[in-house]
């Protein structure tokens, strides 16, 4: 599995397309939790999937297992932790959950890329 992170609108989707994936390969996390989320090669907007799970009272850390077992090839997530800790409890917990899930995904991933201005930098690679 390849994890791609970066700020909002940093060019992550373009990176996914450069890897050869089309829009039909991508599940957008903004659509919310569904079996379909783990059935496509690319899971995009993971942070929105985390939000949906939390809004429905679910445990976002459980997404790790579903992603790994589902065989998702690419997971794409916004980096959301680099601001002032929000006053709103839900927003605070959401940022925390997104960050922890990304740490866990990064451990499972063979490749972790961080995209800046559309330029990917590999920050972890198990490939020789």
């Amino acid at each position, binding site marked *: 599995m390849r994890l791609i*992170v970066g700020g909002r609108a940093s060019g992550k989707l373009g990176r996914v397309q450069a890897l050869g994936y089309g829009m039909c390969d991508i599940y957008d996390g903004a659509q919310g939790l569904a079996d379909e989320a783990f059935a496509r090669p690319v899971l995009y907007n993971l942070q929105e999937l985390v939000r949906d799970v939390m809004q429905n009272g679910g445990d976002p850390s459980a997404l790790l297992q579903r992603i790994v077992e589902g065989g998702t090839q690419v997971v794409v997530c916004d*980096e959301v*932790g680099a601001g002032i800790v929000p006053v709103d409890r839900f927003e605070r917990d959401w940022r925390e*959950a997104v*960050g922890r899930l990304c740490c866990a995904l*990064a451990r499972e991933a063979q490749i972790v890329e*961080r995209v800046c201005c559309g330029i990917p930098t590999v920050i972890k690679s198990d490939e020789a």
Partner: protein
Amino acid sequence: MMVLFLGGSASGKSELAEDCAVALSAPSAFGSRRLYIATMQPFGEEARQRIERHRSLRAGKGFDSRDCYVDLSGTDTSGYDTVLLECMSNLTANEMYREGVGRPDWDGLADKICGDVSALREKVQNLVIVTNDVHSDGGGYDSETARYIGILGEINTRLAQQADAVVEAVCGIPVTHKGALPEGIGEGERKC
């Protein structure tokens, strides 16, 4: 050696910093020579839970622990070769809102805090510092919060100049911006 770890919330920076401090401190037959300086004040249940989470992450890594909410230079570090200071974001907020300190004093606050860190640096062989990236979410803050971001940014920049290594935590992965970490840090299994 002085190492600065930076990262957003839940980026895995604390654990990387702990492992770095462990790698830097000399093994000793006389017990722990690693001191953890905690800056978070236990206000409310959520803060207590965070402190507890950090305690369990540190467990078994051989740190003694001391609380320091303001005036870092007053902390007794005798007998320790390595200090892990966590974190600049709490320390800065504590100094800004301590009793008797008001807005006019904020002008000199980065100087004061950096001076305290330098004094601490003089006293120990290794200093590992954790700080927060609060600088990349687009703003829209009130003037007081903007001021806090500015002061912390200045502190981070100055500490980075002083540090031998500057490392950003991204999803628990160390991304080095300056210098190099001791061997083996961030390469093994990490729990976040």
